[in-house]
């Protein structure tokens, strides 16, 4: 033969030459089987990819929605408090007339706004509307500090001022304006409030933390007293507390509002509903992560199944490789790495898919898209772990095949 490689370089005639597989050859060797069975490779990869995509997307979407909630909470502040005296038949119950003053003197209170629902007073688009069609809208008397206390914004026009509060001037909540068909405020735009015309001076932007104001027409306290005989008892106070002392302030408020009967006073923190949505989102995450894990498990079983079949089909190849000098660990390594390659392909595809789903969802909902860096790592790690587990049994089985039996099979 012409110029064959030196076969006997290295081996020692006494101890015997060794069988050796270069680590660099392991990967090409492991992909031989995959390249030969492309459809099956794609399908078993898909199984893992779905599981990983579910996990990454759940983590990404949850984090994105939480990030959006946190941004909102930050923007709205957690230091807004409301004080009521509970509700009776859906109507707010009057607080003592001195409540506003008491609260303003309380430690930790930065701003306070007093409002009162005027019962039996309703707002209509015109004098042609029957009295029974109130549309579920309230009329509230309020002081001029409401907008600053709530950090609210006007969609159009101006808010009540010390001057306008005395006159028949109204500012409409966002929903109330829509319902009354008032598009923009102005001197000629009027609404009918229980028999009196009020000029619409402004329309409010929605209040996230005080939705009751969205469905109300707001008028000044003096006007309420003069026109509707308002008795000076507020029904709801809005308070901005010092952010660092919100909890202490909450404790003091009840006594400040109603020294005679503190338990009759309800102090609540509207941002708590948003905070609780964070918790709800978290519990939803665990559920979906569980489903993702099940999908991943099914994908892993799929890989194990494909690998077991592959070992059965490739008994002749295993026998051949043993005849060519492969040791049992070489055979086990080939099949284990093959399974890992399958899982890694699935993991990469799934992670990419999960990130894509997160971005699309965030884009559609207008959230900031956030994929926790750990999620991608977790996805790939989980895929590798599943691949290793799924490949272990087939690999051991392949390595254990007697080479003579394996060669007999075709």
């Amino acid at each position, binding site marked *: *033969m*012409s*110029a*064959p*490689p*030196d*076969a*006997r370089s290295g*081996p020692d*005639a006494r101890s*015997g*030459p*060794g*069988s*050796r*597989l*270069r680590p*660099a*050859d392991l990967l090409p*060797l492991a992909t*031989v089987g995959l*390249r*030969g069975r492309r459809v099956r490779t794609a399908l078993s990869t898909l199984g893992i990819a779905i599981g990983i995509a579910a996990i990454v997307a759940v983590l990404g979407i949850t984090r994105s929605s939480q990030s959006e909630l946190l941004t909102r909470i930050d923007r709205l502040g957690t230091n807004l408090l409301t004080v009521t005296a509970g509700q009776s038949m859906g109507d707010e119950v009057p607080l003592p007339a001195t409540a506003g003053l008491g609260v303003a003197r309380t430690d930790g209170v930065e701003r306070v706004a007093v409002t009162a629902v005027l019962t039996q007073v309703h707002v209509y688009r015109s004098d042609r509307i029957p009295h029974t069609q109130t549309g579920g809208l309230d009329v509230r008397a309020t002081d001029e500090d409401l907008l600053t206390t709530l950090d609210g914004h006007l969609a159009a026009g101006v808010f009540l001022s010390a001057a306008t509060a005395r006159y028949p001037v109204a500012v409409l909540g966002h929903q109330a304006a829509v319902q009354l068909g008032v598009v923009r405020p102005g001197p000629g735009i009027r609404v009918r409030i229980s028999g009196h015309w009020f000029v619409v001076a402004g329309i409010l932007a929605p209040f996230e933390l005080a939705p009751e104001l969205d469905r109300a027409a707001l008028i000044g306290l003096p006007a309420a007293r003069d026109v509707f005989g308002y008795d000076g008892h507020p029904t709801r106070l809005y308070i901005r507390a010092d952010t660092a002392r919100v909890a202490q302030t909450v404790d003091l408020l009840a006594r400040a509002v109603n020294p005679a009967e503190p338990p009759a006073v309800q102090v609540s923190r509207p941002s708590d509903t948003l905070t609780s949505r964070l918790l709800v989102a978290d519990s939803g995450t665990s559920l979906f992560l569980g489903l993702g894990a099940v999908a991943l498990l099914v994908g892993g079983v799929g890989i194990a199944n494909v690998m077991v079949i592959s070992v059965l089909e490739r008994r*002749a*190849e295993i*026998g*051949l*490789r*043993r*005849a*060519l*000098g*492969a*040791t*049992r660990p*070489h055979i086990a390594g080939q099949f284990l790495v093959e399974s890992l390659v399958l899982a890694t392909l699935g993991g990469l595809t799934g992670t990419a898919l999960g990130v894509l789903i997160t971005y699309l969802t965030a884009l559609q909902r207008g959230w900031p898209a956030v994929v926790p860096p750990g999620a991608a790592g977790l996805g790939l790690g989980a895929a590798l772990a599943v691949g290793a587990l799924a490949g272990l049994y087939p690999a051991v089985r392949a390595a254990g095949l*007697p*080479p*003579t039996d394996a*060669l007999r099979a*075709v």
Partner: protein
Amino acid sequence: MSDDVVLSFHAVSKTYPGTPPVTSLREVDLSVRAGEMVAVVGPSGSGKTTLLNLAAGLDRPTSGTIHLAGHAIESSGDRRLSGLRAHLLGVVFQRFHLLDHLTATENVATGLLYRGLPRRRRRAAALTALERVGLAHRAHQPARTLSGGEQQRVAIARALVGRPALVLADEPTGNLDTVTGGQILRLLTDLNTDGVTMLVITHDLAVAAACGRQVEIRDGRVSSAVAL
């Protein structure tokens, strides 16, 4: 034992467990010297394949000793046997056993995979071996696109690529038509002339006649060893 003995069987028996146990080789003595081409002939079930499996270190004898290039096979562990196969043996099978979707070159290079040689050297050696068996022009064809005769040539190149001390051939013409079988036989005898030591298992008398020495095996015993 003389230095130029490549393979030697001494009082080798092989019994497969079962009820009843099957003894397929009984007290076989056999030796193959460097440069020889020995045919092992015998009817089906006579123990030819068992003999090949033992010679290849794919199986162990129940009793007796087997030496391959001075290494005791019967007492070696799996690792050591694998090493002996990787370095000292080339095997040609009746059914070729090529990896279908690999090219001819890749199939031949697989013969050196478990020696730990770099890929470049394996490929270079594979191309040389393919040239030797007259298939240089098919080097980059996938094995599945080759004819039966070409596939067996690739398998022979794979057995030769590492310049082994001994080539074992199990019915090398068994799956080929007469003309192609004749060509393969001529290739094997040419290789032997060039110094390749061969042990050929066959029940084809033409193949046996082409070998320098025939060993007949019947019911697990060597019944005659005729030098031509």
